[in-house]
């Protein structure tokens, strides 16, 4: 059961949670999200959770395929959560809220400076009208609507995590949460032998030895071809198959483009990949680059030992994954700092891994975030 995600845009990036808790709200915030609200009646005490843990092939985490976050809040928790969410709402910059539009809203423009109409805008009887829900952005003369909760839209250079769904001649097709499947050509993939050469028919036959169906892989967006199809590339050691970890699927808008999307959390010996498409990988750290060759050179080490992930690491993976789940359920933008912070908080307050998805920690995280943002704001205004 999900509340429609294309509802009222909220610049602070957590509005949908408010919607999720609509039934037990009294009469706070004015909601005029009627146009596209298609919730299936009042939502019961249940947080919308877009994150779903996928079963990963050969992964140690043989978790259930889909898992929604079930929450039952008691009276105190409900009040605390409401207070926290309210504070978050009040902390959101007013300017962003003012620039938020829904479909058919008129975007105020100055007629004199001939504006350039960008995405999500249309001309209606001489007025510029929004055709998407989102925030109006202005760059020089360009006016466009930045959607807040749209499907993933790839840009060149994005790092994405995807799942192989088909092997076609010379290419793999990947599900990446885009409106179409992405294509990874055999030729834009560095071969296991690491030699730069033309791909032969033999290579083509051996494609399954590189990636099979249902493999989770990481790649970079190369660009759109002339026919409009999306091409990926994986010409680097750090791209490729992801094993021994968890794939989490969160709404794509929760991952912002950053300088770094690959993170090696040394403290936990865990790799965290925040795919721009909302696929997040938490897995055991793999050594990339020249070191892998050395490891391959090493004889012995039976495959059993090699495939073994220490219990400690597995626990770390679960803890981080659950942190991501909680944060995405709350609708907070996922940054590596926030994920670590949340995981740390769970450790320091002695919350078991499985209890992390419970109501108490959920409320606790919301409060912590509200406090953090308030501090940040205070610091900022203090600096001014």
């Amino acid at each position, binding site marked *: 059961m999900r509340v429609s995600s294309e509802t009222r845009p909220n610049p602070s990036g957590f509005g949908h949670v408010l919607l999720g808790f609509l039934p037990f709200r009294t009469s706070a915030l004015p909601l005029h999200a009627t146009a596209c609200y298609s919730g299936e009646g009042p939502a019961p005490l249940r947080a919308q959770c877009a994150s779903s843990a996928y079963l990963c092939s050969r992964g140690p985490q043989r978790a259930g395929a889909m898992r929604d976050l079930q929450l039952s809040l008691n009276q105190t928790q409900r009040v605390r959560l409401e207070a926290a969410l309210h504070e978050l709402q009040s902390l959101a910059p007013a300017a962003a809220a003012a620039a938020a539009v829904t479909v058919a809203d008129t975007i105020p423009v100055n007629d004199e400076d*001939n504006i*350039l109409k*960008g995405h999500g805008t249309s001309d209606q009887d001489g007025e510029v009208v929004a055709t998407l829900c989102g925030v109006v952005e202005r760059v020089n*003369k360009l006016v466009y609507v930045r959607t807040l909760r749209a499907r993933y839209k790839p*840009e060149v*250079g994005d790092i994405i995590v995807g799942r192989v769904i088909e092997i076609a001649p010379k290419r793999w097709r990947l599900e990446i949460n885009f409106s179409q499947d992405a294509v990874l050509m055999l030729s834009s993939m560095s071969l296991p032998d690491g030699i730069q050469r033309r791909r032969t028919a033999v290579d083509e036959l051996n494609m399954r030895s590189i990636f099979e169906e249902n493999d989770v892989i990481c790649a970079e967006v190369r660009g759109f071809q002339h026919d409009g199809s999306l091409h990926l590339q994986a010409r680097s050691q750090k791209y490729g198959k992801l094993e021994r970890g968890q794939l989490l699927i969160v709404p794509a808008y929760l991952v912002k*483009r950053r*300088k*770094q*999307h690959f993170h090696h959390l040394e403290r936990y010996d865990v790799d965290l990949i925040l795919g721009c498409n909302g696929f997040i990988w938490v897995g055991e750290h793999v050594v990339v680059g020249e070191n892998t060759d050395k490891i391959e050179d090493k004889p012995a080490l039976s495959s059993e030992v090699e495939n073994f992930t220490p219990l400690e690491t597995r626990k770390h993976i679960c803890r981080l994954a659950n942190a991501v789940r909680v944060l995405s359920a709350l609708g907070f933008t996922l940054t590596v700092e926030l994920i670590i912070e949340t995981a740390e908080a769970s450790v320091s307050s002695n919350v078991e891994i499985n209890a992390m998805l419970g109501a108490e920690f959920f409320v606790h995280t919301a409060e912590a975030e509200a406090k953090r943002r308030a501090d940040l704001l205070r610091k900022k205004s203090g600096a001014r």
Partner: protein
Amino acid sequence: MKPGSKAGTPAARAGTQGKIPDTSSRGRDQKNPKNHHANSAAAVVQQSTSGPRRSESSFWMPLINNLLKKSLVPVVIFCFSKNRCDKSADSMFGADLTSNSEKSEIRLFCDKAFSRLKGSDRNLPQVVGIQSLLRRGIGVHHAGLLPIVKEVVEMLFCRGVIKVLFSTETFAMGVNAPARTVVFDSLRKFDGKEHRKLLPGEYIQMAGRAGRRGLDNIGTVIVMCRDEIPEESDLKNLIVGKPTRLESQFRLTYTMILHLLRVEELKVEDMLKRSFAEFHAQKNLPEKEKLLLQMLCQPTKTIDCIKGEPTIEEYYEMALEAEAHRESITEAIMQLHSSQQFLTPGRLVVVKSKSDDDHLLGVIVKTPSAALKQYIILVLTGDCMSSAIVPSSSNQNEKESGDFKQGYFVIPKGKRGMEDEYFSSVSTRKSSGVINIKLPYKGDASGMGFEVRAIENKEIMSICTSKIKIDQVRLLEDPSQTVYSKTVQMLIKEQPDGNKYPAALDAIKDLKMKDMLLVENYHAYQRLLKKMSENKCHGCIKLKEHIALMKEQKKYKDQLNELKYQMSDEALQQMPEFQGRIDVLKEIHYIDSDLVVQLKGRVACEMNSGEELISTECLLENQLDDLEPEEAVAIMSALVFQQRNTSEPSLTPKLADARKRIYDTAIRLGNLQREFKVPVDPEEYARDHLKFGLVEVVYEWAKGTPFADICELTDVSEGLIVRTIVRLDETCREFRNAASIMGNSALYKKMETASNAIKRDIVFAASLYITGI
């Protein structure tokens, strides 16, 4: 003049016999519509710098005839300007170098090749002109030709039916078409900036075209001597000279930075490191790394302090600081007028010793004069040569000053002899200021070593209050042992206790130092000295040893830091410029503060054919909005056209307006870049990247005017017009992509229309190489 050329066209086409030359060559000469007499006259004028000479035709014909006789054709004649190529070819109106069968082959080939052109294009003066030339076995090849004409000439030349080809340097570069003979019209060329001699590399590239593999045993290279014969040394340098050094042409562009910033894979710094410009610096990197590792591994000698807590580091810092203070103060003191009064012969001074760990007491023997600008000072060197027990500390002292020591130990007893040798001619004159001893003069008297040296005034550490009586004449002019020993004894007497010096003059009270800063400095120095004396290390017997150690360590640390710096990204040559460019990009919101590429940056990434910043700003300021597609594409031509000096185009008011807007944008961007210390001159930046020479031409072309007519509008050669319009199509595509990134469908459509408007006829005729003939 145009009707004339037009009329000449059919005649040339009709003439199967290439021996009727005049009308045909006139036809192709439409750009410079002169008849042949005018042509040769122009040639004479052009050559007037190198003296008057015969007309072109009579110049080339004997050579060609000679080559034909010796069967040294085909020949490529390199002229270094398009104009000269054309004129030389035109001047050969009397020549017919082909047989009948070759003529028909050429004719067939040309007809087939040019059949792909549409009606009026087939009658372009250049197309018609080249055909008449080709039929006679003469070819022309330079950048001003239409691409299709160039291809026809190249292909015919490779078939061997063209006997003489006048060409610019371009023919030696891209095309693989060797000849039997290569002729250099001149050994100087204009390279866009200056008239200069050919470089050895260029010469070899061109001369290398002589001799066809599998056909000729020998290739012949002929250098034409016009009126002056080139110097032998020049020729030698040209033919066997050293090739030009390879220099990195790596340019840091905004597009490159943006492209690298949007992928996580590669840092921009890595890219800079891999450029050829950094090659030499980076080549040594592994060695440096090794050295660094070695240095890091080196165990640092620890100073074991005998007094427990080691404060030597602190002490060393203080000593360094004190030294710096002292230098500035003494320098100032020596400048003081009052101090000059004290620095008279007989004054006791403390002098900095060479081995810098101890200071010496001395007496001024002679003050600076016009001849010698230094003080002559007799100092006590502290130990006695003849004494058997040499204090260990001063022993070390001498070890450090190498030459000093040698003189010291080798000649101890032979001093007398030395004296005799050097000072036999004793001057009788009194106080004439002549110095008859060799400086530094060393000796010992009454158990104390002494030395007479000449020193700079900055070596004087302090001036003492006391004064002694000295015999200047006896000391310098007529050195006598007794006087020396007397002086030394007096000096020793002044030393109240072995190592201490007599009281120094107070800088403020006695020398009347007034400068505020200096006084403060002086106090700071005094305080430091006091602190130093309070430090545990002061007076420690191992002080000297430890100070030396500290010095070593300091040097080592500095070295280490230097190495680390060299290996870091900051040492890259282009780093400052890169930083500047990053700041510019941030300022105009192409990237955010975390260096994540923003929408504007993504638009700029699409712009490859024109200057990325100007293109992007022009788009985002919506400058193309009120323009028709034809006008828009005309303005965009400024971004891709590359010739500097052209005739001024006549523009419609709307176009002139648009031109001003984009020019202002460029100036604004130029100013911004200069603000952020990117080496850019706004005016030059705008002029370099926006060249409006073809705006009118492209506008007319996009409106559907035939090619023959648009050529009339400008003095830019046909080949360049075609090249510019072809590139312009690329720009249209980029602008279209940018429009789709921004989500503006109107602009997208406009660019599509513009692209279709310019994509027609001769400009986009398919290459003969690709489609085949």
